[in-house]
């Protein structure tokens, strides 16, 4: 809408360049050629960034398809599926919620990683879905961002006993034998799937 209005104003100046002769016309042209295009481009860029957080957006890449399917596995041990199916994370932004960094500039870093993914997808050699690895070990900070202080988390004695080790990443939530089944896309062929009701 905003971009459309901007286009109409620019088209008026292109069609009637004599407008720029008067003082009012110069102000109009400045708004149409500088202020509005910059403002609308910033607005459009923010729309793009917001859209790139959506689960559907992440799953548009073919390579991510098994990861999308893993969210519907009918098995309580599948961590990602349980978070998705029980709405422990916003389902519309499921991938981003767990795979962003909850730190200063974490969103920016996540977006730059996304650009790298696009580069690999179109100009590099994309790996098979099973061989995709995280850039660095999963940080417990991302789990504790939501779970720390939650009743269900604190009522588990193991959590409270090793809380300091969890906070310092000495013990990993995912790879220490506690919650080690996350996406496991290699075994999806043997699994049953849950169908959400429309």
């Amino acid at each position, binding site marked *: 809408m905003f971009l459309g209005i901007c286009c109409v104003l*620019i088209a008026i100046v292109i069609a009637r360049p004599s407008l720029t002769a008067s003082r009012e016309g110069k102000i109009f042209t400045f708004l149409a050629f500088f202020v509005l295009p910059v403002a609308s481009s910033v607005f459009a*860029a923010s*729309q793009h960034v917001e859209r790139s957080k959506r689960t559907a957006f992440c799953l548009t890449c073919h390579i991510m398809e098994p990861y999308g399917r893993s969210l519907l596995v009918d098995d309580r041990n599948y961590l990602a599926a349980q978070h998705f199916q029980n709405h422990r994370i916003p389902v519309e932004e499921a991938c981003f919620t767990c795979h962003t960094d909850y730190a200063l500039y974490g969103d920016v870093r996540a977006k730059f990683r996304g650009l790298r993914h696009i580069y690999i997808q179109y100009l590099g050699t994309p790996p098979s879905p099973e061989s995709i690895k995280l850039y660095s070990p999963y940080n417990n900070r991302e789990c504790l961002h939501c779970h720390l202080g939650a009743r269900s988390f604190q009522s588990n004695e193991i959590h409270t006993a090793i809380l300091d080790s969890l906070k310092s990443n000495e013990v990993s939530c995912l790879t220490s034998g506690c919650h080690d089944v996350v996406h496991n896309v290699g075994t999806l062929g043997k699994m049953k799937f849950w169908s959400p009701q429309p």
Partner: protein
Amino acid sequence: MKLSHMGVQRAMQFSGVLILVGLLTEIVTLVWEKPLAFLVFVGIGGGLVIAGILVYLYSLVAGGSGTSASTHPSRD
């Protein structure tokens, strides 16, 4: 380099076309829901808008004395 009044208008029209095409490209990328859309948005849409704005600003600077020259034809 100084531009005449007509030159300024032509430069502005040209910058307007660049910005217009850039903004239309941005609109298309907002409808196109693919990761590649963001690259097209930045690379083509953003590039054309920035190029158009630079041409517009140049026409303002270069045409500043050109506009006054049109009021003083003897200087041409």
